[in-house]
């Protein structure tokens, strides 16, 4: 199969022309999002443009260390942006979340490249950078949802937590039901999404591969493997993040600290 034809700059401008519709609607309905829309679209364009330059060089040099560094930089930015969208305090959570995510997603990335794809050089840019980006982009949000849900529900349902302590539960026994709920919150939307995949949506990675000239059969196998890997990465990262943070999130009396959340 042939790779998709290039898009000329002029024709890409037509894609930007599409924005006229939401802009017109926003002005008409006074939604007040025009500015934000331009900033977001501008950032997307700039960032993707920069990434394309970086990718060109990453592929040209194809140095394992450089590729690994790039993945770590991606994790860093992914953590940063996911945390901005949550209420968790950076001071308490950034380090542990970064670490658990690095371990969770990193492990799955190596497993994917080594065991599933079985390519001799698992640190090559094609696998490390591209598959890494896919894995990271799709699992960090669920991970953050899981961790935020854990702490927010302990704060919100504090009576339930204290009731369990008063019933003789030790710290981990009292946290277990909240841990269970947090997992469900992180994984349930993902499972629903998995159940409709292919029917309702054509996943991005598959689309990309097919456009890039790959056989749809190959693209599907990659897609199946990556979805399963993402799911497992979320599970591992949520578990590790709670494990890494829970010890410091409560004082010796078993009471949740006040400063776990950012004040808005």
């Amino acid at each position, binding site marked *: 199969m042939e790779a998709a034809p290039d898009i000329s700059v002029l024709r890409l401008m037509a894609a930007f022309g599409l924005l006229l519709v939401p802009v017109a609607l926003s002005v008409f309905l006074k939604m007040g999002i025009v500015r934000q829309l331009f900033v977001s679209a501008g950032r997307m364009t700039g960032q993707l443009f920069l990434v394309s330059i970086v990718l060109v060089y990453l592929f040209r040099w194809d140095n394992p260390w450089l590729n690994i560094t790039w993945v770590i930089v991606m994790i860093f930015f992914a953590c940063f942006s996911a945390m901005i969208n949550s209420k968790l305090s950076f001071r308490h959570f950034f380090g542990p979340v970064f670490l658990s995510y690095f371990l969770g997603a990193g492990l799955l990335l190596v497993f994917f490249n080594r065991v599933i794809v079985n390519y001799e050089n698992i640190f090559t840019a094609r696998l490390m950078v591209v598959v890494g980006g896919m894995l990271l982009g799709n699992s960090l949000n669920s991970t953050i949802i899981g961790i935020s849900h854990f702490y927010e529900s302990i704060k919100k349902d504090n009576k339930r937590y*204290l009731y369990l302590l*008063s019933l*003789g*539960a*030790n710290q981990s*026994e009292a946290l277990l*039901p909240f841990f269970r709920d947090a997992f469900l919150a992180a994984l349930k939307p993902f499972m629903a999404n998995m159940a409709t995949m292919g029917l309702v949506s054509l996943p991005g990675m598959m689309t990309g591969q097919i456009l890039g000239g790959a056989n749809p059969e190959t693209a599907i196998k990659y897609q199946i493997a990556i979805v399963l890997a993402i799911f497992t990465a979320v599970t591992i990262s949520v578990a590790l993040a709670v494990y890494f943070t829970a010890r410091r999130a409560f004082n010796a009396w078993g009471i949740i600290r006040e400063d776990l959340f950012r004040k808005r």
Partner: protein
Amino acid sequence: MIELQNITKKIDDKYLYHDLSLMVPAGGRLLIKGESGSGKTTLLRMLLGFDFPDEGKVMIDGKKLGLENVWLLRRQMAYVSQEMQIGRGKAESFIREVLAFKNNRYLSYDRSKVLTLMDDFHLAKSTLDKRLEDLSGGELQRLAIIVTLLLERKIYLLDEITSALDQHLKELIVHYFCSLDDKTLVISSHDAIWHDQNFPTLNLGKNGSSS
């Protein structure tokens, strides 16, 4: 036995308690009255080590409540509060889970005992098979009480447990607890029905407190 010695606590520069001292002997009763925001719940939470006085001491069975004994002393007490979400899943599984906590291992799950207690509190047998999230507020409240009764604690801290219930259930619960002669009861409530029991009473007012 519960003792508060010269407890003072301020919230936003206003005294919640000012030099408050009291004693409830083993098997004794104490009713805490006061408007909402007067510190009834905070007082109960202080006994459990979930909240802390600025000054003064909390003593349980002659021991000062502190980090070295709080986890042990909490196991002398049972705490039930109003409108509490106690968990998810089947009611019976929840009870089993509580009895399987490491600290409760010396107790075993005795279904007939649970059923007797459910009968005492007018809960249908089928409630055990229902999910906690499907129970009504009144059912949940009674189940929360039953769980604490299974643990056979000495001290019961009851925070507005009858407020949301109808008259018939209020009477049922009040009579049940009044019949537990060997238990120490500390009750916070607006309800007239508790006031009719002539328990020693602590009035928490706007300017500190008096008993």
